[in-house]
């Protein structure tokens, strides 16, 4: 079931999570219901800096149509978005801006690094380029490619959806998460 759901070709009608159903009722845990709602209504914040941003435009365009995955509502304000999509080279001059945007986003938030530059600096191992955004903010999913094809970006979105759907409601309060934030000097 899960595989079929994730196929690019199938239109996404969200499948019900596991639970107990009987006549006239369906019971599942709150966590799963919330996860289902969250994962199918992600509001991405496109932080497009260079080439990968153009491929993201193609992903949003009518040909690939990211709207099929419930994330057609681009939010350009960090305060109203769930998913930070960093696409393209992030120079050291840009680093503090990116960090600020991440801090401004409301919890729960996820980050996807699209393309080689955002993931690792890519071919630009130079004095001016940040060698991967995971040096300043935590990243959930990396999408390789220079630039990745729209299919790969969609694959990354699906991977994020899996993470979002399975995330425990208490994860953001856990000691592990706090330690992660502390590692990045964020409170």
């Amino acid at each position, binding site marked *: 079931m899960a595989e079929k759901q994730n196929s690019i070709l199938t239109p996404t009608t969200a499948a019900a999570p596991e639970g107990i159903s009987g006549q006239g009722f369906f019971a599942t845990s709150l966590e799963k219901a919330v996860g289902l709602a969250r994962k199918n209504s992600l509001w991405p914040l496109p932080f497009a*800096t260079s080439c990968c941003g*153009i491929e993201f435009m193609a992903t949003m365009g009518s040909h690939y149509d990211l709207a099929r995955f419930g994330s057609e509502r681009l939010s350009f304000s960090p305060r109203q978005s769930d998913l930070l999509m960093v696409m393209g080279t992030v120079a050291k*001059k840009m680093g503090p801006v990116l960090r600020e945007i991440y801090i401004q986003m409301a919890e729960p938030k996820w980050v996807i690094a699209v393309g080689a530059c955002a993931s690792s600096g890519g071919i630009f191992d130079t004095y001016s380029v940040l060698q991967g955004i995971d040096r300043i903010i935590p990243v959930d999913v990396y999408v390789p490619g220079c630039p990745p094809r729209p299919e790969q970006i969609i694959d990354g979105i699906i991977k994020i959806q899996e993470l979002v759907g399975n995330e425990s409601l208490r994860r953001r309060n856990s000691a592990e998460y706090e330690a992660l934030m502390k590692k990045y000097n964020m409170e």
Partner: protein
Amino acid sequence: MANELHTDYWERDFVRTEEPKEYNTLNVGPTHPATHGVFQNIMLMDGEFIVETEQTIGYIHRAFEKIAERRPFYQITPLTDRLNYCSAPLNNMGWHMTVEKLLGIETPKRVDYLRIVIMEFARIADHLICNSVIGVDSGALTGFTYLFQSREFIYEIYEEICGSRLTTNMGRIGGFERNFSAKAWDKIRYFLKTYPAKLAEFENLLARNRIFMDRTINVGSFAADRALAYGFTGPNLRACGVDYDVRVMNPYCSYDEFDFFIPLGQNGDTYDRFMVRQEEMRQSLYIIEQAIAKLDKMDDKQTYYASDPRFVLPPKEKVYNNMEALIWHFKIVMGETDIPAGEVYHCVEAANGELGFYLVSDGGRTPSRLHFRRPCFIYYQAYPEMVKGTMLSDAILTMSSMNVIAGELDA
């Protein structure tokens, strides 16, 4: 108060006012949905009107010129991809022609025509994005989603030829890495057949649209002499009425054999820039048709790279099956061929204007200095002068019609 609201804003005097005014500072960028790239404008605002603009750029500075000093010549092609990533093949071929000029490689006519086909497709792809983004900024998203499908078709043509979509790394020094397949030709012909109707439909959507005309005519206009002083080139200069086009003035790649018009604007405003780009797309289609006709007339259907084994990477089949080709491949890749010392400046008409490469070689394996003349970087500095005294919403349209690409701006 009521009177004030109805005064025509062109008649207002922004700078010299009697009473002390209260100005606001507005920060646009570096990540703003309306900037289409990462650059920051800090604007001093008098209500809705811009008094002063201060630009900050460099947010994706990647030190291309420094990297280029450490890379062999054929490895610099991927860097040029990422300059103006909307029209990567144009940059690739500009670089290849620069190196050919330094090395003295004469390319066969067929290579020239194939290059022209690809370069003009790249120009269409770039203008198409710019014009549809002007539509988006004036509130018409339809044109964007509609025209992006045509861009997908161009991507498919690229894919048939070189295997990648956006950052193509297409061609090699001296020609192409492989011949165009039959499928590629089919796709090219299909595009040529279907695109004019789509382009006309897109133009119908905007060009005579009352809202679009009101938003763009006389917005961000710039005089020709100021444009020249600020180093404008390409469609932005031609919209001001100066007919400078590198393809005509210093023809490269056999452009002198082709027959086409250079569209010109009159006022140098946003509408003119839009219309110049529209017409250039038509002229590009016309050039491609001529190139295909010339290619069809040629008996030779196989040549796709110059015959100069010292510098031209041999095709892969030959490397695997032919001893000499393997040796040359090894020598070029390991940097054992001597690049002559010298310096050369070569420019091509890229989608945004004159894209120049100033290459200095000291005889080593890598360039000793490579400087890119990036058209965006040079003309974007005129932006404060262009938007002074206009409204914020007009400034956004002016910027999108200038087609400032962050990758090219910051290099």
